[in-house]
């Protein structure tokens, strides 16, 4: 019960063996991940309820997202998960150089992920594709420059912003008649993704277009909260990196690296679900 | 915000959620008045969201509806033709100048129908035609002429309106015409309801002013109406204001223009919800509160 003379420095006083401490730490981390899962579970519930009841909103909304950027980010995050797993492996084997290298690589991939996210966000913000009452989509985007956005305080019967000479690929739908009071919105067909125009199921598409701000609410909150978790994970990885550089870890003590890894993989798993749910809607 | 409609006597309750329809049903088995309350917390006035559910005997609701819907109408509704047969008889009989004049003013087809009328019950269709024609008279030019109304006891309201300078216009002119017609055929046509009574009806029901303004001096969201007429209130901003017609009208249409100090700018506008004549009625009602003081 009392402090054994061989009590290792990393073993807290109230644990009897390193193994007890290790398992407690692991269980604690898994429980923490449970709270994260339920935190995101609320968001997935929000998503599921709206998608089940208003699928047309999602059909209309996802066209503004860039599949290739989303796919790129998925791969970046998977690779970062691999490097994190390799970092844990290096820590288990006591290979400090490899540990530092893999942690640094994970950190860089995370930066890369955020960089792509920044590009995506800035496109959306520039095009006014913001949630709720901030949803003020630019009429269209041309190669030469932007058409001015209709001012937010325009009276309801104000004419829509003048349409530029048709920059969309042939087959882009004509704005439906009487669309002046609906949000003035045309998919950014000339955007990076060069998506096919919406299908001709006009009624559903029109209803979806009217409520597409709901999609961007979900998009920004879900990816935003995920992005915050990426940033938190980066802080953890940086902390692990500096501890590893000071030689804090050894083949008999690498619990923090393992726990950081668990957290990072969960961030990856959540993105694995976000990607098809937000970008790949059929 | 969400409200909840509760009629305790009916053991019935359902939330009233914005943006959607909620369904509820009940079967009232007793005649009487039962309280109706809001049970979902909805802000400052939550506990004042009360009214009464009236369960009428069969037919009672229709009577009430007639009264309520005719309350402020300056023109005639079929129900205002209290004795259609009497009116038609009078017109057929002629005699008094006003009768002759009125028959002349009716449309030729109407006159034919009246002359073809055998007496006895008046058909729904004929009633409607007559009322339409009467309303055409009401909304037309001023009908008063000393010779025409010789022998008619002109009522006090009509007298006041006739003496008005400038002469009454719009609804008031229609109202004057109506008073005069009713004076000419007191047994056959019903008088437009008293403005004060209408004002009380708007205060209690149609406008719902009651939920924020008391008439007994009690504190509430808005200033009490007790003795409000002619009273001078300090304002949150600007000089004090004495309560008169124009201020009341402004307060109803643009409630936040002048706020009595000590109160919050929370009143919604009634622009488009109350007609000018209804605002007149509210003003008339407020004047009576001053008299009671």
């Amino acid at each position, binding site marked *: 019960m009392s402090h054994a003379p061989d009590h290792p420095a990393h073993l807290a006083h109230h644990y009897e063996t390193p193994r007890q401490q290790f398992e407690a730490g692991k269980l604690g981390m898994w429980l923490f991940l449970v709270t994260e899962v339920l935190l995101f579970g609320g968001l997935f519930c929000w998503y599921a309820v709206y998608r089940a009841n208003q699928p047309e909103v999602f059909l209309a909304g996802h066209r503004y997202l860039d599949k290739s950027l989303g796919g790129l980010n998925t791969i970046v995050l998977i690779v970062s998960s691999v490097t994190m797993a390799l970092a844990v492996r290096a820590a288990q084997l006591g290979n400090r150089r490899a540990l530092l290298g893999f942690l640094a690589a994970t950190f860089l991939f995370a930066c890369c992920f955020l960089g792509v996210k920044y590009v995506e966000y800035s496109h959306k913000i520039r095009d006014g594709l913001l949630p709720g*009452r901030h949803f003020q989509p630019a009429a269209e985007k041309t190669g030469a420059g932007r058409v001015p956005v209709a001012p937010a305080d*325009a009276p309801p019967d104000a004419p829509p912003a003048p349409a530029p000479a048709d920059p969309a690929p042939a087959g882009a739908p004509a704005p439906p008649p009487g669309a002046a009071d609906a949000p003035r919105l045309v998919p950014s067909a000339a955007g990076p993704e060069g998506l096919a125009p919406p299908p001709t199921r006009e009624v559903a598409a029109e209803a979806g277009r009217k409520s597409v701000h709901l999609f961007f609410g979900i998009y920004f909150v879900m990816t935003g909260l995920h992005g915050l978790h990426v940033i938190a994970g980066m802080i953890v990885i940086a902390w692990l990196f500096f501890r590893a550089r000071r030689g804090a870890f050894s083949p008999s003590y690498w619990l923090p690296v393992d726990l950081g890894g668990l957290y990072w993989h969960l961030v990856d798993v959540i993105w694995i*679900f976000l990607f098809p*749910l937000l970008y790949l809607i059929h | 915000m969400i409200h909840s409609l509760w009629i305790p006597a009916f053991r019935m309750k359902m939330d009233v959620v914005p943006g959607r*329809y909620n369904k509820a049903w009940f079967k009232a088995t007793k005649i009487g008045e039962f309280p109706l309350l809001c049970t979902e917390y909805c802000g400052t006035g939550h506990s004042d969201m009360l009214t009464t559910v009236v369960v009428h005997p069969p037919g009672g609701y229709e009577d009430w509806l007639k009264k309520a819907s005719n309350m402020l109408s300056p023109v005639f509704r079929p129900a205002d033709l209290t004795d259609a047969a009497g009116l038609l008889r009078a017109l057929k009989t002629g005699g008094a100048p006003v009768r002759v004049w009125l028959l002349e003013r009716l449309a030729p087809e109407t006159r034919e129908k009246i002359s073809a009328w055998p007496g006895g019950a008046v058909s729904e269709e004929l009633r409607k035609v007559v009322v339409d024609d009467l309303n055409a008279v009401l909304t037309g030019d001023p009908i008063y002429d000393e010779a025409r109304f010789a022998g008619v006891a002109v009522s006090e309201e009509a007298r006041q309106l006739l003496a008005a300078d400038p002469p009454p216009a719009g609804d008031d002119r229609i109202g004057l015409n109506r008073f005069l017609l009713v004076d000419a055929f007191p047994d056959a046509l019903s008088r437009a309801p008293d403005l004060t009574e209408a004002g009380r009806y708007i205060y209690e029901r149609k406008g719902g002013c009651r939920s924020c303004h008391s008439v007994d001096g009690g504190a509430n969201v808005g200033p009490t109406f007790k003795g409000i007429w002619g009273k001078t209130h300090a304002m949150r901003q600007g000089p004090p204001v004495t309560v008169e017609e124009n201020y009341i009208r402004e307060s109803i249409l643009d409630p936040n223009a002048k706020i009595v100090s000590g109160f919050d700018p929370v009143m919604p506008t009634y622009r488009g919800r109350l007609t000018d004549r209804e605002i007149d009625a509210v003003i008339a009602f407020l004047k009576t509160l001053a008299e009671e003081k």
Partner: protein
Amino acid sequence: MENHAAAEPHVHVVPLRLLLGVGALLIVLTGVTVGVTYVDLGRLNVVVALAIAVVKATFVALYFMHLRWDRPLNAVVFLTALGCVVLFVLLAILDTGQYHTDRIPDHAPAVHR
């Protein structure tokens, strides 16, 4: 009281090739998910996309997060959380789907200018 081996943490070093293999598989599956969206499967599209995501997440959990060699308790904890989310989502969809038709279409005064 306990022998030294039992007192040390339970270590399982994942083979390098396994980690890299799982990583490669995940990237391949990502490609498959993207590819499937170009095939019209009707309502099955979302099911397929989610099924692939579940497979990917399972691989991450089993191999990257070591659940395959970990104490079963941790897996139970994790699955409980997922069960809870599924329960929440299912009951919420069940109810909102029922009353969805009661909603007033386009009732959104603050966004419909």
